[in-house]
C-alpha cells in the first residue's frame, strides 16, 4: 500500500513489477494511467491549443489525503496491493500525470477499487491544474462530472 507524490516521471512497467512481486494472492491487477490531454480553449473567435500545464499541490496534505483514500478502498474491497503515484510540476501533452494500480484476488474488486481511487483522488486530493494558453496562464475550474463520479461512491 503505497502513495507517492513526485515531480519526475514514472515507469509503469517497473512500478507494476515491483508492486506485485511475491504477492501470489493477486489474481487481477487493474491499472489506470492519467495523461496530459491536448486540449483546446476558446479565446474570442479563436480556438487555441493548450500544450502544457503545471500541477500545483499542497505538500503534506496531498500525501495524507491520498493515504486516507487508499485506506478507504482497503476497507471496502479485498486488496492485496495498491499504488498511487501522482506527479506535480510542469507537464506537456502526452506526459503521464498519475498511476493508480490495485491488485486483488479477483478482477471485480480490482476494477472497482481502481475506479474508486481515481474518482476520489480527483475531488479529494489537493491538486490544481494551471494551463498554459496563448492568452496566458489559466487555472482550470472544477469539473461537475468529477463531483458526480465521486458521489456515486458515497455510502448511503
Amino acid at each position, binding site marked *: 500500500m503505497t502513495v507517492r507524490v513526485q515531480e519526475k516521471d514514472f515507469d509503469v512497467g517497473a512500478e507494476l513489477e515491483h508492486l506485485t512481486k511475491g504477492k501470489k494472492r493477486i489474481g487481477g491487477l487493474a491499472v489506470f494511467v*492519467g495523461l496530459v490531454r491536448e486540449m483546446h480553449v476558446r479565446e474570442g473567435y479563436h480556438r487555441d491549443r493548450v500544450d502544457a500545464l503545471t*500541477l*500545483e*499541490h*499542497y505538500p*503534506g*496534505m496531498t500525501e*495524507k*489525503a491520498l493515504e486516507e483514500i487508499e485506506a478507504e478502498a482497503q476497507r471496502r474491497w479485498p486488496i492485496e496491493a495498491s499504488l498511487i503515484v*501522482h506527479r506535480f510540476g510542469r507537464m506537456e501533452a502526452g506526459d503521464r*500525470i*498519475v498511476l493508480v494500480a490495485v491488485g486483488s484476488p479477483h478482477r471485480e474488486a480490482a476494477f472497482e477499487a481502481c475506479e474508486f481511487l*481515481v474518482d476520489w*483522488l*480527483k*475531488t*479529494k*486530493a*489537493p*491538486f*490544481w*491544474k*494551471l494551463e498554459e494558453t496563448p492568452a496566458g496562464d489559466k*487555472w*482550470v*475550474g*472544477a*469539473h461537475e462530472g*468529477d463531483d458526480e463520479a465521486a458521489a456515486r461512491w458515497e455510502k448511503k
Partner: protein
Amino acid sequence: MKVKYFAWMKRTVGVAEEDVSPPASVTTVGELVAWLRGRSAGHAEALAAGAAFGAAVDKRTATMDVKLTGASEVAFFPPFTGG
C-alpha cells in the same frame, strides 16, 4: 498561526503564506475568513462570500464551522482539479 493560499487564491491575495495573530474572538474557520477579509483588498476578493473555495486545518479538509483550537496551519484553496 500560519495561513496558506493555493492556486489562484495565492495570486489574488498576493502571498503564498503569512503568519497571522487573530483576536481571541476568532474561534472557527468561518470567523477566520471574515477576519482575514479585512487585511487587504486581495484578501477580501479571494475570500469573498460566495467565492468557491475550501479550507484545511492542519492539512485536513475542514468546513467553515471547524474550531481552530490548537491549530497551527490553516489553508485556503479552490476546488481540486488533479488526476
